[in-house]
């Protein structure tokens, strides 16, 4: 094999194309994974806003309020936190996951707010793995022991693991007088949970209370639900106290775990904490920075186009679609083999169609070209010089657009006024070019050329007007690199154009 062959343009380009595909694939994977980009433009991220309102009556002394808050990346990612506590010193106790607010000599009704914005379900295994201390077996009387064993007997017959069995058994035997000593007396969930912890402790299974909030749109003044967390198979697992279901249900967030109270107020009374929940949505693009930060991938993000001001981003979003439009034109011309007026006229036309809407744009464009051609034919007799003549057409088109805009406005008919969005230069140029072709090559050829230009524009339009395509080309802009190499590779395409197949068909000699 000749060396030159090895390095032929086509091979180099094919290689680069493969490289760019590999790069784009990785990059798409990266963006989806670390920045949370999605392939669909419609996908949105739910952002939950949790408001915890702490209120109490201060008694004129120094006040210390301690509130349990979710651990970092507990089951959601934290977008932002906000604390409204005027004249209080706020300290975050990271180790215990508590918020401590201290104030001097407070009196009267006090209101403190803690607001948390979270997004994205996550699984934080680190929290689940914290090894608990060894559990002391509770000291039980003989009677209690008998009842305890009986309960465990019952628990064994239940479905699921030991803890599930215990929860189910307790739920079932709630009214059983023969086991009243180990069953919860009153039916608050806290008491219920504590009893179960005790039952589990009998078998040295570590367990604790967890307080969690169900995220529901529009929830107001709610309190936390109590769940049970037990250390089974070397990890902490959550259990629902009434259904015995395993795991934290979707859209729940754990605020606090262990025996300590959720809210602890020193120097005040009648303290309570109420939760409200609000849901809002954001596009993945908006969330990308937070996600990148959360994943420690901020570096790449900061040098991406998504950090630009919105206006620039919108302009770029528009630009990013051009390569694809160009690809369409290249394919139409070099692979299909239609002749269009000018190389990129169809592309620009398609862009205008996106702005005007498809049908209105086409109608308006046809009217403009039609009227323009008639005017051009009329002035042809005046034998103006070339530049003034083209200028005439441009000015005429501008006037035409004006008239159409006024008519469209007066008749309240958007179709007509969409004329404004057609680039005049392009329109004028098409008219000029069409009328010259008309003179030189006849009406048929002109109409053919206009027709093919429109067909190419329409195909381009359908590609670029798709919300999906636009989103993908912007969010995964590395695809443009792939498009680039495809276009370049098409530049080495030496096969027949589709239209040539019929053009040269007479050259196929049969029987040879």
């Amino acid at each position, binding site marked *: 094999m000749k060396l030159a062959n090895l390095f032929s343009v086509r091979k180099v380009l094919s290689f680069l194309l493969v490289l760019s595909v590999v790069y784009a694939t990785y990059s798409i994977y990266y963006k989806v994974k670390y920045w949370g980009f999605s392939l669909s433009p419609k996908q949105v991220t739910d952002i939950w806003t949790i408001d915890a309102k702490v209120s109490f009556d201060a008694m004129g002394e120094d006040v210390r309020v301690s509130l349990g808050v979710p651990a970092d990346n507990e089951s959601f990612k934290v977008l932002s936190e906000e604390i409204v506590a005027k004249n209080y010193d706020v300290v975050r106790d990271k180790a215990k996951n508590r918020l401590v607010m201290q104030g001097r000599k407070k009196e009267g009704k006090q209101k403190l707010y803690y607001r948390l914005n979270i997004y994205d379900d996550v699984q934080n295994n680190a929290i689940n793995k914290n090894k608990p201390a060894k559990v002391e077996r509770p000291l039980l009387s003989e009677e209690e022991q008998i009842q305890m064993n009986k309960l465990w007997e019952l628990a064994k017959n239940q479905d699921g693991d030991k803890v599930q069995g215990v929860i189910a058994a307790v739920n079932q035997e709630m009214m059983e007088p023969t086991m009243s000593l180990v069953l919860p007396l009153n039916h608050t969930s806290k008491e219920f949970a504590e009893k179960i912890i005790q039952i589990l402790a009998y078998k040295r299974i570590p367990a604790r209370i967890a307080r969690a909030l169900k995220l529901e749109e529009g929830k107001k003044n709610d309190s936390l639900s109590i769940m049970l967390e037990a250390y089974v198979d070397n990890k902490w697992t959550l259990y629902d106290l009434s259904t015995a279901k395993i795991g934290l249900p979707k859209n729940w967030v754990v605020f606090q775990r262990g025996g300590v109270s959720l809210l602890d107020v020193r120097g005040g009374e009648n303290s309570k904490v109420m939760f409200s929940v609000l849901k809002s949505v954001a596009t993945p693009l908006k969330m990308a920075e937070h996600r990148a930060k959360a994943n420690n991938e901020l570096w790449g993000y900061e040098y991406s186009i998504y950090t630009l001001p919105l206006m620039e981003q919108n302009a770029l979003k528009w630009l990013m679609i051009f390569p694809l439009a160009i690809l369409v034109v290249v394919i139409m011309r070099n692979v299909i083999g239609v002749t269009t007026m000018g190389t990129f006229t169809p592309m620009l036309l398609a862009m205008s169609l996106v702005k005007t809407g498809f049908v209105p744009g086409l109608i308006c464009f046809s009217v403009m070209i039609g009227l323009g051609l008639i005017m051009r034919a009329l002035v042809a007799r005046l034998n103006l010089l070339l530049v003034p003549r083209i200028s005439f057409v441009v000015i005429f088109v501008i006037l035409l657009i004006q008239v159409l805009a006024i008519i469209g406005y007066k008749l309240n008919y958007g179709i007509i006024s969409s004329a404004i969005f057609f680039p005049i230069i392009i329109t004028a140029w098409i008219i000029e070019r069409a009328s010259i072709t008309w003179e*030189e090559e006849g009406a048929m050829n002109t109409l053919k050329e206009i027709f093919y230009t429109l067909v190419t524009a329409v195909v381009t339009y359908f590609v670029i007007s798709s919300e999906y395509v636009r989103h993908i080309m912007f969010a995964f802009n590395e695809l443009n690199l792939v498009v680039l190499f495809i276009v370049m590779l098409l530049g080495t395409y030496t096969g027949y154009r589709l239209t040539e197949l019929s053009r040269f068909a007479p050259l196929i000699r049969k029987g040879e």
Partner: protein
Amino acid sequence: MFEWFKTAKLLRENGVLGMNDRNYSVISKCNKRSLYTLVDDKVKTKRLANSICINTPKMIGIIEYQFQVKNLLEIVKGYKTFVIKPAHGSGGKGVLVIKDYDGEKFYSASGDVLSFNDVYQHISNTLSGLFSLGGKYDVALIEEAVIFSDVFKNFSYHGVPDVRVIVYKGYPAMAMMRLATKESGGRANLHQGAVGVGLDVRTGRTLNAVMHNKPITVHPDTGANLMDLKVPFWREHLIIGALAYDMTGLGYLGADIVLDKNRGPMMLEINARPGLAIQIANGRGLKTRLEEIEESYPKELSAEQRVDFVLNNGK
């Protein structure tokens, strides 16, 4: 879809050269871009041709600026006929052939009667670039009109038949004659309905004739039998083509040649991107011919030797 691949395969087997292949494998490899200016400017081409004794219509003058337009009559003084054409024109655009004129009236070859003002306008348009590629400013070339030989009289309706020779690396590869028809309006453009007659490069005789891509045997307007066509001075035609290669260095070119009654074959223009319709006129693919020349034709021959090589060996 499958049908398409089959057709493409058959075309390839028949050595048909496609547009993409022409542009990529032939033109971009054989024709250096910088050489294009030699043939895109008809004034340059003519001067170059004269310098190596290729016969072309005699240049009468050039009009470069608007203010010179009014001197037209002085420029053409002493010539009975003349042709005005844009130096950068193509496809016959803006070519005005004046058969006869007096001070006021100009009689064009297509039968129109023009006033001086019309001709003046025509030249102005030419200068402003109406007929040239990309609408750039242009100059008007004024040359003597060819007195067409009568041999083809019956073969063409009005317009003038011309011979197109495709020259590859200096060797005439394929040839055709274009005959105007009523439908083509006296023009020799195949896509406008002119007749294309494929000529055997060795003999200058008809191989095949087409109109609108369909084979025909008689001229639709004159009824002449196209199979009888034989171009006289065939060797001289080919020599012009071969010399055009020496003169321009273009590895792939199309030379347009007309036959003058008195002065013999004359080169009208050279095309650096000759079209592919010639294959249809010849009923055979060009690629096979190009490969043949590339692979087995001797490299270091003079123009005349190359022509003789083709005349004796070519297929």
